[in-house]
Every structure is written in C-alpha cells, then in structure tokens.
C-alpha cells in the first residue's frame, strides 16, 4: 500500500481515474482517448498547482514519506565498489548510521549517512535512523580515516534526531555529537553534506559540518521537530503545522537565512516518485560541488569552512 499524503490526494484520485479510463479503453470498443487527453491536461495543471506551492507542513510530510529514498538507495545509484564497514571500536555497531568507502566517478570517497528503514521491521532494526553515541563514533572513525587517506567525505543526513534514550545518555550522546562537530570542522578533505529527508537537530548536524550543506528541495532541517516546538512553546503538539512555518525549516527558507549553500531540486511529486531520476539530480550537485572543492588547497579549504560557519547567525552590533 503506497503512502498517500493529504495534500496530494486530488492528484492521486485524478491519476487513478485516468488509469481506469485507459484500462477501459483497452478492454472495450469505446474510444475514450479524447477524454483521457483532457484529464491528462488537467492533471498536469493540478500537479503544477500543488507541487509548486508546497507549504512547510507539506514538505515535512514529504520529507517523512515512508518510500522516500534513503542513504543506501542513493549510495547504490551514485557510487561504485561501495564497501560498508561496521562498528565504533568502543561499544558496538549502530545500524542507524551506515559508513564505508566507495568510488565516485572513479575517485575514492568515504560515505557516511543516517539510515532509516522503509518498513516497520527495518525501522526497528535501524532504530528509525536515530543514532546512539556508537553511531556518531563510527562516523567519526570513518571520517578520520578519510582525512588520513585524503578522500573526500560525502554525508547523507536523514534522521529525526539523536536517540533520546537512557543508554545513549549513559554512553555520552552529547560528547559523541560535540566531537563530530569539532572534528568535522578540521578535516583537511572536502566534505559535502546533503539533507535527503529529515534533518533533526544535533543528531543531524553531527553529520552536517562541512564545506557544503545541501538540501533536497523537500527535505527539512530543524533545531527541533515541529511537534516538539509546538508542545514546548504553546503546550499543544497539535500546532505542529504552525510551528513548521514559524521555525523556517524548509530548503528555500534556510538558503535565505544563509544556513545552507544550495538546494538540490526534486522531481515533481517528490523524490520517492522515481529514485533513478532523483539520483541523477543529486549526482549533478555532488559532481559540481566536489569539483569546486577539489581545486582548493587544504589551507584555503579549512579557512573557507571556518569563514562559512563563523558567519552564520543574526545579530546587531
């Protein structure tokens, strides 16, 4: 059963109607071609109306779509020779984060990303893509290795946040995140971070410090979930829709605030519609930004990275 989002119900209904008419035409003598063409024009217009006017809350739904491509989906499409490696060497292997090495258009890279599941079973194994400290430490280990061997790092961000559990606290969730933020700011290799789904708070940022922070058009990046903000600010989790607007969590808003560097367009209807076409758009973005970054001298790279972060914020002086 495909997940249908509230705002796209009219589109789905119309699409089903067209499919129905097509089947009918095929199976009977009645020629409904004219009718079908009419409906297809209407569908085109409807899709345009809906998908070019997505509200923040619609995008939250899109970013959370069960079938939205995950890190491993993109890895399979964009890289060759991917080898996934496990474990943080201290405690365990966190399935909520995947990491490994691969080739990107012939050059070696290190890949790190949050990994959620698409089914309940998978999600339970992946802890819904919400990492424990060992996940962040696994990521750190691979990024340190990338820096040692001079490989660019590609990070995929897709998490509701770091897991708020007892064991996570006991093993130093804060320290694990903090260390990643600090170390990522200093690795002498290009780092490209891409928010592909939800980018929730510190757990997202822990894979998000680099030379470029890119967002898929319908992904979100936020200091707190809209539900969380609504319940804290207005003691009403039901006001999530309002919070989603106020918090400025969409790619266009964050580009304007100077938080992200670029937006990767999504195919119409969202990334989940067609992984292959979406992966091509992600591919273009990585290729473009990587080639810019690879030209830079290590010192310049680090200087620019520092400049970028030291300039984020808004205040009067």
């Amino acid at each position, binding site marked *: 059963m495909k997940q249908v989002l509230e705002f796209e119900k009219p589109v789905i209904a119309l699409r089903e109607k067209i499919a129905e008419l097509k089947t009918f035409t095929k199976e009977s003598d009645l020629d409904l071609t004219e009718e079908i063409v009419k409906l297809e024009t209407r569908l085109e217009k409807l899709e345009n109306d809906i998908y070019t006017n997505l509200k923040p809350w619609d995008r939250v739904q899109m970013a959370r779509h069960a079938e939205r491509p995950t890190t491993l989906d993109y890895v399979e499409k964009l890289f060759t020779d991917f080898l996934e490696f496990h474990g943080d060497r201290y405690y365990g292997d966190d399935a909520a984060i995947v990491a490994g090495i691969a080739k990107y258009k012939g050059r070696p890279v290190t890949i790190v990303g949050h990994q959620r599941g698409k089914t309940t079973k998978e999600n339970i194994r992946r802890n819904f893509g919400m990492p424990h400290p060992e996940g962040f430490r696994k990521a750190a280990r691979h990024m340190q290795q990338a820096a040692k061997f001079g490989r660019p790092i590609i990070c995929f961000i897709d998490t509701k946040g*770091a*897991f*708020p*559990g*007892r064991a*996570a*606290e*006991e*093993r*130093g*969730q*804060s*320290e694990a*995140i*903090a*260390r990643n*933020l*600090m*170390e990522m*700011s*200093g690795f002498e290799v290009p780092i490209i971070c891409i928010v592909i789904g939800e980018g929730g*708070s*510190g757990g997202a*940022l*822990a894979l*998000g*410090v680099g030379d470029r922070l890119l967002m898929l058009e319908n992904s979100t*990046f*936020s*200091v*707190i979930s809209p539900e969380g*903000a609504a319940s*804290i*600010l207005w003691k009403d989790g039901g006001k999530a829709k309002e919070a989603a607007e*106020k*918090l*400025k*969590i969409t790619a266009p808003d*964050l580009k304007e*605030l100077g*938080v992200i560097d670029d937006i990767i367009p999504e195919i119409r209807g969202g990334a989940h519609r067609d992984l292959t076409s979406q992966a091509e758009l992600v591919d273009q973005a990585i290729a473009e930004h990587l080639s810019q970054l690879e030209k830079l001298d290590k010192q310049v790279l680090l200087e620019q*990275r*520092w400049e970028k*972060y*030291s300039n*984020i*914020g*808004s*205040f*009067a*002086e």
Partner: protein
Amino acid sequence: MLKDFFSKKKHASKPSEEAKQDIPEGLMLKCSDCGKIYYREEMRKQLYVCPNCGHHHQLPSDERINNLFDEGSFMEYDTDLNTGNPLGFPSYTQKLEKDQLKTGLKEAVVTGEGTINGFRTAYAVMDSRFRMASMGSVVGEKISRAIEKAREANIPFIIFTASGGARMQEGALSLMQMAKTSAAVQRFRDAGGLMISVMTNPTYGGVSASFASLGDYNFAEPGALIGFAGRRVVEETIREKLPDDFQTAEFLLAHGQLDDVINRHDMKKYLTTILDIHQAGGNVS
C-alpha cells in the same frame, strides 16, 4: 462526612503552612533541597551553596566572575552584540526584553578575560536566569569570539556552562551555533590552547552537545543536571522510570563522562592548579 470535613481542613491548612515559610523576595532564601532558610546575604557569601546540605544553587554570572577572578583584573568582551528576531518569531522580542529587565543582562552569556591568581585567562560564563541560557546567535557568537580571542592571545579559555539547549525562536540559526562554537574550539585546539569546561546546573541539548563537552578537561558542579535529552523526554521514549540520580554530575562521573565534580568553594584553587601545571609545560606562555 465529618472525616471529609477534617481532611479538607487539613488539606486547606497546608498552603498556609507553606505561606509561613514564604519569604520576602530579596531578604531571605530557602534552600530548594533541604528547606533551610538563610539570609540572602549569607547565602551570597557562601556563593549560594547551602551551608546546611551543600546544595549548589544558581550563581549569577557577575558573582561568579567576581569570585573567580582577581580583584580588578577582569574586563568584558563584546558588550555591544544585540539579539534580533531573525525569524520574526511571535513574542520573542518581548521575552528577551523581559529577561533583560529582570537580570540586567543583555544576553545569556558574559565573556571576557581576567586573571585567576595571576594566570591570565579568557572566560565565558552562561547565566541561566536569562532565557534558560538557551543558545541563540548572540550566545554562539560571543562564545566563539571569546575562544578566538584566547587563541590570538595564547591564553587558556574557561567556560562555565548552563543551558536548557537551543534557542528555539532562532530556529536553525541556533542549531548552527553548535557548529560555529565547535569549529572555534577545533581552531583553538590546533593552536595548542587549553580549554576547561565547567558544567553547572543545568547543561542540556545543543550546549551539552557542543563546546560544553569539548574541554581538555570537563568538570561539573555537584548535583548539576547534564544531558543531551531531558529526563522527561527520555522517560517518555523508553517508557521506563529513571533512577533519581540520572543525569546528575555524579551519575556522569560514574559513567566516565566527566574528569571530576568540583565544589564551588574549591573552584578557584582547583582551576589555579590546572593553570599552573599547564603553564609549566604546555603551550601557555
């Protein structure tokens, strides 16, 4: 019925009992832990550590600075940074103004430098009376600049943290202060700088998960609550009751997350020893 009458009365008398203990604002202070009442002035002299039970109460930033640094030795950095309302968040500006009025502070952190028993040191002291010392653009910027100044002057950096976490009203700009401050720590580290973090009650969320955890030495005051996610959120997530001491400084120490827990009365001497050892050998010239 008679029983009801009495039990009601008993219940009604309870608040009045508390009302007796209700102390005029400013003159007396009641320890939130053991309930003993002290003159505010006495508590102030004791650095707001309860003389009876040792509970560490909130210490205003100016008093901490006064107590820690040698008399007349300290100055403040970046006093002219003003918080705006970058997202146009409803009632944010009013909330800021209210806390400015209440505390006399412009924002939730005071930064600067001074000497501690003669050792020149840059500092940042967060003040939880101001918006729970949540981290917005100004807090992140001031801390980041203080670390940069310590790097340029080749002096140690000491931070006293306290925070409820991110400043929600500044959205992702608040989140990114975690990256900015952590990047500043990395630069300071690369230059061989000494950073000491002292976590005070409470240190949570984005502050706990950035500079607060990045000292060469990480300490906490007794009883301070420190964590990434708050107790209530954790309890709701795992549907399990947590131990009473969960996320206390002592709990963190037992779990290997802190170098030590330091009593406020011993703080100056303790920090002096660290500064002294580092001056003898490290990169502090």
